């Protein structure tokens, strides 16, 4: 169990959570993450990574215990398959949805185009999303995250089914956000990515959840 620090911004206390009281996915979870951390949420399928992110996002209520955080704005990106890719809207429409999360007026065409440039997507703002590839669509979602201007980013396996070039570009976007002091929780299976980019690891297991530094960061071997 990680000690709870006074300056922490995300705190899990005696947390029990799941979708049915008789079979909780997470039990007795205690840890804290300071603001500005970039943390990979690691664990096998069904270990509760997505559940943990949903709890922080406020999409799921704990069965017991509580989750506290002091972030003013958070952004949550669900797993890839959660979106209807045939939905009849354009890239601009998707990006403009950020205005409902971030009340500052950053949704003019120049801001939208700048966000697209940051995620290295050279497609017209008017392009329908149904014309985009999986990787391009993920870049659009990352551009929307940038426009939301969150303090805390919750990303649930955002690189599943995405090509290497896109992953590399979006990893750069996340690293930039981390350098700007944003807090990032990234649920992921890819140890190569974790050991290349992510300095902290939150290991989610049925036996307990542990937070540690990534000692293999920068090394080119798998854990």
């Amino acid at each position: 169990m990680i000690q709870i620090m006074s300056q922490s911004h995300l705190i899990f206390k005696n947390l029990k959570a799941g979708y049915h009281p008789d079979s909780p996915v997470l039990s007795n979870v205690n840890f804290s993450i300071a603001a500005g951390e970039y943390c990979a949420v690691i664990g096998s399928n069904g270990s509760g990574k997505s559940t943990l992110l949903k709890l922080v996002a406020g999409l799921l209520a704990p069965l017991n215990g509580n989750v506290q955080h002091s972030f003013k704005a958070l952004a949550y990106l669900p797993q890839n398959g959660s979106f209807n890719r045939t939905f009849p809207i354009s890239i601009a429409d998707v990006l403009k949805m950020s205005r409902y999360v971030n009340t500052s007026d950053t949704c003019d065409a120049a801001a939208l185009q700048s966000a697209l440039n940051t995620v290295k997507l050279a497609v017209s703002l008017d392009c329908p999303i149904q014309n985009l590839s999986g990787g391009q669509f993920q870049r659009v979602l990352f551009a929307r995250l940038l426009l939301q201007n969150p303090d805390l980013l919750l990303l649930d396996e955002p690189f599943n089914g995405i090509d290497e070039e896109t992953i590399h570009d979006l990893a750069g976007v996340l690293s930039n956000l981390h350098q700007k002091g944003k807090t990032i929780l990234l649920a992921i299976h890819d140890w190569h990515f974790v050991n290349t980019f992510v300095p902290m690891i939150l290991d989610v297991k049925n036996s307990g959840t542990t937070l540690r530094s990534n000692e293999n960061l920068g090394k080119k071997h798998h854990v």
Partner: protein
Amino acid sequence: MKIWARNTMFSTLWNLFILPFAEYAFMQKALLSCVLLCISAVPLGVFLLLRGLSLVGDSLAHGILPGIALAAIFFGMAPVPLFIGGIAAGLIVAFISNQLSTRSIIPEEASFTVIYSLSLALGVLILFHHGTNTNVMHLLFGSVLGIDSVTLSLIAGVCVLTTLFLGKFRKLLLMYCFDPLLFQVAGYHHKVLMFSFFALVVSNLVASYQAIGTLLALGLMMLPAITGRILCGHYRQIFKVSSLLGIFGCYAGLLLSYHIDWPSGPSIILCLGVQCLAAYGFKRSGQKGL
């Protein structure tokens, strides 16, 4: 000779397409009520379609029958009690279905199916025991040609309410349809929004029943929306094209009903259905051509 031929052709076209609406007040009221319903109900149909809730609309359309049937027994065919009865029944169906889906493992679509089957059976039984044949046919298939001023006012009221709601919340509804998680994370109360939305769906279905009947009311809401979705690639175009096609389909249905003496409700739905299939064929042939 040319002038005579031109006048004859003009006269024929006038008699076919304009005369019924120029001469008869009941046709004008019928067309006006259909136009109002297309402006009001069709955009809601587009949202149901985009959110994948077409079947829920079907359930609500059938679910209003017991309320209308009970109101017909106690208050006769007066429009206001029928309207209130229908809305009450629709909201009860929506509430019970929501409770079933949130408190059990039954998915929302399945819970709506359970309740709508029950309410449809209940409605038919009530009508079977207490209603006359005229009542039953009127409630099930509507009578747009018999719409009175009170009913027209109710339809207009529903249209204004729906237009105001969509004017205010259209973008939020769209966000909820595309990305409900973003909607919730942003702190919006999706239950309040969706309850208001379904209350409007029920109100529009009840308003439509007078024209199309409870069994076909959903057709007026969904068929133009589906046609618009087939033809257009962006939601703004879908909203405009759907409502316009809905109005055109209603106009064509009313003409069929007038000239061939078919029942008006089924004629309108037939035209809207043919439009939908034609749009599908047009789109398919266009894709093959490419």
